[in-house]
């Protein structure tokens, strides 16, 4: 009896053991199969051969290769704008935050690339509904060319990534000098992964409501749709207003007094790089605007866009200098750079549809809008060291609206093979009525209300985090300068010192902490405010 019971118990244990082992094995098998499936999906190791059509290249098809090369060349130019931003932002900042500005641009670019691969492109250019796309996550399910563009899918992706990166970098300009690096990472994820791609879908994505139906405002738009050729709104107003929200949530840098309090802007530390950075941005704009045709077959279009871009920048740079001259009786380099950048931002939306004279008018107005915007920020006690909001936010609005005034009515839209003139874009001053103007106002206002509103929530939320993830650096770190406090090194040295340790995965050669530093020994950079 006893033995029987014991055996039963043993059997029960044995059964449990067997069940556990079997269950574990099943779980393991499912896990491994799942991982294999996920791996195959993510890397498309099995699916690739079928999903991408083999290159069926006909001898007389020169359109796809030429369009692809055109888009790639312009994508490279847009990418080079990062160098321009680095020069401009570092030059206009103080020397104590130079390393911070440079690393933000580099880190944001890396972050943006990965986010745009994983989700950004899917939200923006995937097929979905009017509000968001949900196709091509992790670039899964690519086709040979994107849509009807006759541009290689990944060339199109690269071009759009460079745009997303630009929007993300614009944002940091107004937040220089007091943003913690961890805070920067948090808002950059939101900007590159969500805000920019989702708003971009509304204007440019397949089925996006602003670019196709105008949604609730269909009646108001009078049959036209919101048009933003290369992104005055989609890139620049978005970036500029996120920047403004950041500057408001952060508050001014320590020691920044405003004009009405008897102060003024903190001086830039390197105008050489500031100005060169500005001109590099101008150069990059030759990718930004002409490349947005996505087609070299529209050869008249790309010529017109490039020329209009140039003329708007020239008019704006000159207008800004002349506008500021009577105040100071000085020929102002800083405002000329902000001015021509404002002109470039403004012409970005209408560049395809206006005449050269129209481009000059648009640029000239932008050149005055920018200094007025800088004055307004000074009045409102908002510290924007680089001028990100006047240049990108405000000039972006003007450029977007200007299309509704100055579109000549001669041009339609570029296509892969040439031009589609079935719908011509005509502005108020060319007798096209107010329909296009209304569409532009609806698009621009939507951007300001939705993006600015959401960004304020986001920035204040990060600003209220406890500890080091807070958006704003602590007072000590800010006074010491972000370069030393956040990055452990200033940008400029009188001497380079001597290496004392190198930390590797295998451990550090020597560790320093404030407690074990005897008198007469070096103190770690982050422990000792200099």
């Amino acid at each position: 009896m006893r033995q029987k019971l014991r055996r039963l118990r043993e059997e029960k244990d044995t059964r449990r053991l067997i069940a556990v082992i079997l269950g574990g094995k099943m779980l393991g098998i499912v896990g491994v199969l799942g991982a294999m499936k996920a791996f195959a999906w993510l890397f498309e190791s099995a699916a690739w051969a079928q999903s991408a059509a083999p290159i069926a290249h006909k001898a007389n098809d020169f359109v796809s290769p030429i369009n692809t090369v055109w888009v790639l060349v312009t994508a490279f130019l847009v990418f080079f704008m990062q160098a321009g931003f680095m020069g401009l932002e570092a030059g206009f900042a103080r020397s104590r935050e130079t390393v911070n500005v440079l690393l933000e641009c580099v880190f944001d670019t890396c972050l943006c690339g990965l986010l745009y691969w994983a989700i950004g492109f899917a939200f923006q250019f995937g097929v979905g509904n009017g509000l968001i796309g949900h196709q091509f996550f992790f670039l899964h399910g690519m086709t040979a060319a994107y849509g009807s563009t006759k541009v290689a899918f990944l060339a199109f992706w690269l071009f759009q990534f460079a745009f997303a990166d630009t929007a993300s970098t614009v944002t940091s300009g107004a937040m220089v000098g007091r943003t913690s690096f961890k805070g920067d990472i948090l808002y950059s994820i939101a900007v590159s992964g969500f805000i920019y791609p989702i708003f971009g879908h509304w204007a440019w994505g397949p089925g996006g409501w602003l670019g196709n139906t105008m949604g609730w405002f269909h009646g108001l738009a009078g049959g036209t749709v919101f048009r933003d050729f290369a992104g005055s709104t989609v890139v620049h107003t978005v970036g500029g207003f996120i920047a403004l929200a950041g500057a408001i949530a952060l508050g001014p840098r320590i020691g920044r007094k405003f004009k009405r309090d008897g102060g003024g802007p903190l001086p830039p530390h390197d105008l050489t790089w500031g100005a060169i950075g500005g001109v590099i941005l101008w150069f990059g704009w030759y990718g930004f605007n002409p490349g947005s045709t996505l087609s070299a077959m529209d050869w008249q279009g790309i010529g017109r866009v490039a020329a209009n871009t140039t003329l708007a920048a020239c008019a704006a740079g000159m207008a800004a200098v002349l506008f500021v001259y009577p105040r100071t009786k000085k020929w102002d380099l800083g405002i000329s750079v902000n001015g021509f950048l404002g002109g470039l931002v403004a012409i970005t939306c209408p560049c395809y549809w206006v005449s050269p004279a129209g481009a000059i008018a648009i640029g000239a107005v932008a050149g005055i809008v920018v200094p007025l915007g800088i004055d307004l920020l000074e009045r409102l006690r908002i510290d924007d060291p680089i001028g990100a909001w006047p240049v990108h936010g405000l000039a972006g609005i003007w450029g977007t609206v200007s299309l509704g005034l100055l579109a000549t009515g001669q041009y339609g839209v570029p296509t892969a093979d040439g031009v589609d003139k079935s719908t011509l874009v005509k502005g108020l001053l060319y007798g096209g009525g107010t329909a296009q103007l209304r569409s532009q106002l609806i698009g621009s206002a939507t951007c300001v209300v939705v993006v600015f509103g959401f960004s304020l929530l986001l920035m204040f939320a990060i600003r209220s985090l406890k500890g080091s993830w807070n958006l704003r650096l602590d007072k000590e770190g800010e006074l010491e300068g972000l370069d030393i406090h956040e990055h452990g090194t200033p940008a400029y040295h009188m001497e380079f010192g001597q290496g004392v340790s190198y930390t590797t995965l295998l451990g550090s050669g020597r560790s320093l902490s404030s407690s074990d530093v005897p008198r007469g020994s070096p103190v770690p950079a982050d422990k000792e405010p200099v």
Partner: protein
Amino acid sequence: MIHLVTAIVKPFKLEEIKDALRGAGIVGMTVTEVQGYGRQGGKSETFRGGEYQLSFVPKVKVEVLVDSGDVDKVMDIIAATGRTGKIGDGKIWAVDVDRAMRVRTGEVGAEAL
């Protein structure tokens, strides 16, 4: 009689010191970017994952010519506004000045201040 007050301070304290001295009626100062070390013996910074040692730490040297009766006041103001309480706050010293002259007018002594 005139004294020269010289102070080595942390660079980010300079604006506060300047404002405090102006507020106390001291007009004029000369500043120089300097490097040096005191008891902390330099500092370390990082580059590409490694640490390197700097023997000299950037500081600002402030020089103020003052009437000898103001020396203590000026030193107290600089010490009070320049202090963070952490290592590396700097030093202040004062020396007697034999003569002084204003270049524009040729005034000498206390008149030159």
